[in-house]
């Protein structure tokens, strides 16, 4: 027993402590979402007398279109993720498989441009989108597609690097033999390479989905109509006015909003660990 503790037991103690620290706020939010009082004070009695009241309020109260927020976040997130993966993979393919003039400069330029976070340019983004609204209303201010386009403007950069690194590990002989068999470069890209680099595609998709879900500033700037807003903008407004009263409703909304990501992370863990160590960041 003593030797087991010295070898493994204390490790479990540390691990359990870390798990408690990591989980207690999440347990609290789960408890608050089913707590009948709905206020901050009342929520401190964890799981006393649970109720589904707040979940009902969340979807029925005309004051906050939670259903739309959730659907908007998912739609914007999935579209951005798919677009980022596609654009990033195309660029990574070009950088990994072709040698052309400006290749090195292009790679360096990508890093440099990305050093300037879009968040810092929101004045300019706002003006650009209000100008676009006059010409192409579909991608101007107040449009979800317009927001996706803004996000896709940052789709190259870190993603391209991450993917290029992965593409480089696939032996070039594979595409060459496919080309000898008569495959065009597009066929090589879609049929040979993409299936082989699936893990990195999953990681990039997941990261851009999470980043999109977390964006508050640009989403709030572009989407002004309550029915078009995303979870980050909507939920913040829900609690920013009167935290106490809406606490239970917020907790319910936070849990539902976080659920897709929590589930995705559990399923994709293996990919994430390998993807993360290739140099990705949560941003």
């Amino acid at each position, binding site marked *: 027993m003593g030797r087991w503790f010295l070898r493994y037991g204390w490790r479990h103690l540390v691990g359990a402590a870390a798990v408690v620290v*990591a989980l207690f706020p999440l347990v609290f939010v789960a408890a608050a979402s089913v707590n009948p009082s709905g206020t901050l004070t009342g929520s*401190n009695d964890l799981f006393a007398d649970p109720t589904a009241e707040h979940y009902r309020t969340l979807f029925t109260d005309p004051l906050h279109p939670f259903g739309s927020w959730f659907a908007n976040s998912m739609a914007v997130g999935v579209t951005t993720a798919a677009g980022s993966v596609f654009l990033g993979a195309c*660029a990574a393919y070009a950088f990994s498989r*072709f040698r052309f003039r400006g290749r090195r400069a292009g790679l360096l330029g990508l890093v440099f441009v990305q050093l300037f976070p879009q968040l810092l340019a929101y004045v300019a983004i706002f003006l650009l989108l209000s100008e676009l609204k006059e010409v192409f209303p579909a991608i101007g201010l107040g449009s979800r597609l317009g927001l996706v386009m803004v996000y896709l403007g940052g789709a190259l950069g870190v993603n391209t690097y991450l993917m290029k690194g992965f593409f480089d590990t696939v032996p070039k002989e594979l595409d060459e033999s496919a080309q000898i068999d008569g495959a065009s470069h597009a066929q090589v890209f879609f049929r040979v390479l993409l299936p082989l680099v699936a893990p990195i595609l999953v990681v990039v998709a997941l990261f851009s989905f999470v980043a999109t879900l977390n964006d508050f500033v640009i989403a709030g700037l572009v989407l002004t109509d309550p029915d078009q807003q995303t979870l980050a903008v909507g939920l*913040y407004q829900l*609690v920013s006015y009167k935290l106490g009263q809406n606490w239970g409703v917020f907790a319910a909304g936070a849990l539902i909003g976080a659920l897709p990501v929590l589930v995705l992370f559990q399923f994709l863990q293996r990919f994430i660990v390998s993807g993360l160590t290739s140099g990705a960041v949560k941003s």
Partner: protein
Amino acid sequence: MAARTLSGAVVAKLAVLGVVDALAVYGLVALGGRRSWWLFAAMLVGTAAVNVIYLGSRRVPAKYLAPGVILLLVYQVYVVLYTGYAAFTNYGDGHNGTKQDAVAAILAASETRVPGATARPIRVVERDGELGFLVDGPGGARVGSAVRPLEPVAAPGGGVAGAGGWRTLPYGEIVARQAEITALRVPVPGEGNLRTSDAVTAALYRSTLRYDGRADTVTDPRTGVTYRDDGHGRFAAPGGAVLSPGWKVFVGFENFLTVLTDPSIRAPFLGVLVWTFAFAGLSVGLTFAIGLGLALVLGRPELRGLRVYRSLLVLPYAFPAFMAAILWQGLLNPDHGFVNAVLLGGGHLPWLTDPWLAKLSVLAVNVWIGFPYMFLICTGALQAIPPALTEAAQIDGASPWRVLREIKLPMLLASTTPVLVATFAFNFNNFNVIYMLTGGGPRDARSPVDVGSTDLLISLVYKLAFGGSARNYGLACAVSILIFAVIAAISLAGFRRARRLEAS
């Protein structure tokens, strides 16, 4: 020449290109109509480039790069350049438009009805969407609009209904366009402007101010005060009085100088700068230390439940960060929050309103959000170290501590430095956590600008640009550029260090 069959892929490509070109033509027409010639040129060049790239059979890399690069140019490069441009202007509230607009607005704002002038009967008329007034006087009919001063028109057939192609607006349209009609000002040469409040009669209004285009001055004849262009986008009187609104002008390095030298902004800016570095540095350092510690403790392949630990520990990272920040704002509430009420047994520590406790709180919450990520990174990086290396060292008699310090840590740092640099840059601009948790507060009551003790540079920019009463986009953009310079310098230094570590 090889015969080319029209395969499905080619047809699809041509169809997509056709749609793109059709949209481009539509955009070009719209932009031309709005006289946005810069955007028109950009769009023309872009469309031409796209056609050249995709219609040719060479330039294969460009085919894969074009879509992403176009979006990058529009939504990243352009906005960065625009930010750089705006940083050198006084753009902001009261300095939104051109000088011409500002003069018109100043004169319009000071217009009063000419005393003694009688209201004249008018008819509201319209030609090609342009609204005007038709005045039927003893000298014949006269018509004018906002851009055409009142001038005589020949009235065919004795009537005035169809004079000069103008059409009298029927009652229904007058009702529908009320706002436009009451805002309409028709210049009468030498007399002033005609305005109407009922669409039946119009009265002469005259500005109490006079704009002299040649001298570029605005004069108030009643007081004799002359306002001159002061070079800062305003008309200013010698006594210091200014007319509103102003207009947008280049101010050179003024915004940068303001940030760096104006004591009312420099002091808070420097305070925020130091705290931003501390916040980003401590966030990276603490999360990395905790993550590495956990990875070392739990990173034994034979340890049972490792997968369970990993699944549970990843949850704070997977929980959207903005929700976590809002959640912690509730948990740290001084009166009702879980931390005070339950963990501290009814204490009343002002977690988010005391300057130092607030700093501690945002840091702690950010570490809570970030440590699982570092745990994953370190777990992966430790697994990548060949076991043979550490075994060899152990056989040579190295203590576990020495193996860690001299073998594992250097290799770990080499592979994780890019991640650490990126995490630093991310936390340097970690707007969400600050905004959702404390809003940058508690506010520094002694400072003239709205700045709090947990504000990062990025939230300071946000407040300068969008918060408070006076929006100052120019100043905000200047701070953005300064932040960019700092991040770029750090990142370049970091990457260079990473390359050295990799090379060694």
